[in-house]
């Protein structure tokens, strides 16, 4: 296989993976931007989205509507979690927020196990999605799912972009992310902004969950675990708190992962995750604001 074709295939893989990471990282950054909290439970919104879509399909809904429903349930779950677990501890030291989110993730994952059992469940896809496009005599493959991933991610990002630049609530969110106190002072309803932020962030995660399930063919309670960690890396690389940064970080990370496996010798590629996290640590030490953000963070 020629080198150009090999690279093209890997680029397709990278874009597909990067879209998923970007979707999750954006939500993480949004929540951090407004609340200064690292929401470990964010990954489980993927699981909620994935399982909801599965349940809705089993109840008879068509795939398209089931996906919409899944995203909706994901958004709703985020709002519920915020209201019951995070709002009572708002304003508490960072450690408390972190621990609360750890507890939430523990509960959600075990609820998933209790309801759905811990084994993977099949995630059915409509037949038209099951085919793949082969180019150049099969040396390049991309599937309908890849296309759908990129398409839906594009739609979501465009919608988000419109939202944060053209609507009052969106602008309010950005204001609150810049300076919560000032936003309060000018009369913005901060509680509402936070709820909206969680809804959007969790909805995005739910969408990511559906796409992830479509790519892997299964849903299982721990499915959000690894993507969450990767999303952290992506968000931090791009600039924690910045939506554009999360987007950039997501695609960069997707590309990095795919290329490590594709081009490094097979003794090194299993250490892919270790390399990714070393990169994270390096960023935290030398460029904690990531690539895009400019505000000062506390560092010795």
């Amino acid at each position, binding site marked *: 296989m020629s080198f150009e074709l090999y690279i093209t295939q890997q680029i397709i893989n990278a874009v597909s993976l990067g879209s998923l990471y970007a979707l999750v990282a954006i939500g993480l950054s949004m929540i951090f931007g407004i609340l200064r*909290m690292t929401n470990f439970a964010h990954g489980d919104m993927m699981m909620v989205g994935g399982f909801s879509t599965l349940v809705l399909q089993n109840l008879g809904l068509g795939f398209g509507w089931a996906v919409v429903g899944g995203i909706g349930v994901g958004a709703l779950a985020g709002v519920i979690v915020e209201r019951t*677990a995070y709002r009572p501890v708002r304003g508490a030291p960072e450690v408390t927020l972190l*621990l609360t989110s750890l507890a939430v993730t*523990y509960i959600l994952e*075990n609820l998933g196990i*209790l309801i759905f059992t811990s084994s993977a469940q099949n995630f059915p896809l409509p037949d038209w999605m099951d085919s793949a496009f082969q180019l150049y005599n099969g040396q390049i493959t991309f599937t309908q799912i890849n296309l759908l991933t990129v398409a839906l991610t594009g739609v979501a990002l465009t919608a988000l972009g419109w939202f944060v630049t053209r609507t009052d609530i969106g602008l309010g969110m950005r204001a609150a992310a810049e300076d919560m106190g000032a936003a309060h002072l000018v009369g913005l309803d901060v509680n509402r902004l936070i709820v909206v932020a969680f809804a959007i962030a969790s909805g995005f995660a739910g969408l990511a969950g559906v796409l992830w399930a479509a790519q892997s063919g299964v849903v299982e309670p721990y499915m959000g675990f690894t993507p969450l960690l990767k999303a952290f890396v992506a968000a931090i690389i791009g600039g924690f708190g910045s939506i554009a940064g999360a987007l950039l970080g997501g695609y960069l990370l997707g590309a990095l992962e795919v290329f490590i496996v594709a081009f490094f010798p097979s003794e090194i590629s299993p250490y892919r995750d*270790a390399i990714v*996290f070393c990169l994270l640590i390096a960023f935290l*030490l030398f460029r904690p604001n990531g690539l895009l953000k400019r505000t000062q963070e*506390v560092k010795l």
Partner: protein
Amino acid sequence: MSRMQSLLAVVAVLAVMGVFSVSAPALMNDYFVRILTVMCINAMLVVSMGLANGFTGVFSLGHMGFVGVGAYLSGVLSLSDAAKAAYLPDLPAWIAGLHLAFFPSTLVAGLVCIVLALLVGAPLMRLSGHFVSVATLGFLIIVNVVLINADVYTRGARTFTGVPLETTLPWAMAWLLLTLVVLARIVYSPKGRAWRAVREDIIAAQAIGIDVLPTRLSAFVIGAFFAGVGGSLYGHYLGSFSPAGFYFAYTFSLISMLVIGGMRSITGAVLGVVIVSLLSELLRNLERGFDIGFVAVPPLYGASQIVLGIILILIMIFRPSGVMGDLELSFGRIAALLHKGRKE
């Protein structure tokens, strides 16, 4: 209390615990001895985690990384030659030739963790807040990936087995007591005050001349030593383990023990271990289904973890400082309580 009375009290407690731990297998059945042994090991791990997380305010999520390193390192060192040949056939000659008994291998595990903590902590302890948490999380993941992939030394993700079952209740209790004594002395010394100063306000601490990085680093390193020792004890208790056992599930378990008991108190850490361990055991047995009167509750596997998570959230909301807050149980306080009881 006078020094003499204090000393006598300490000796008395040690003697009682010593006799108890040695005679326990004869007094109660093995199941309870096991629960106590695991509690002692967990207490060591939680208390040592509390040094960084509670006393210096650096919430490290990477503690289990040291525990895992300790377990594997001491495990490899204490494998018999036959076991080494059977399970780690490709081990390089210089390690294959080393063989240490339980105590020395435990010490080596602790010492190696000190070095590792210095290497890791020097860069990471500059960070604060959630950044250091995420960074130490990265450390945990890196350790996990290395353990899984360095399969020549660790059998990779498969079960590492054949480790001699050396951890008995006397050993676990002895190490725990040592840990408690050493840490209590340090935490309530000028060094410990420096730790707490750094936790409360970095700038104020610097203003009075405390150098923040070495202060945080010392807590991190000391904690890592006892984590490595605890890991060795745990490894020699289970006899077989795998990298997945030193990852998130165990991390979460330790964190819940620390937080429920009280992050800022050594007694709190121990108390948290006791509460969570007993609660988990009870819930685990209840999970199998039980009868209240004539209502049969069916088996609900997985419910105990949910209950634990809910309890943690409630604590975060209503009492984030944990059961003990920052109080300690000391002989003085016990004596005072007894006095009060007598007077009333």
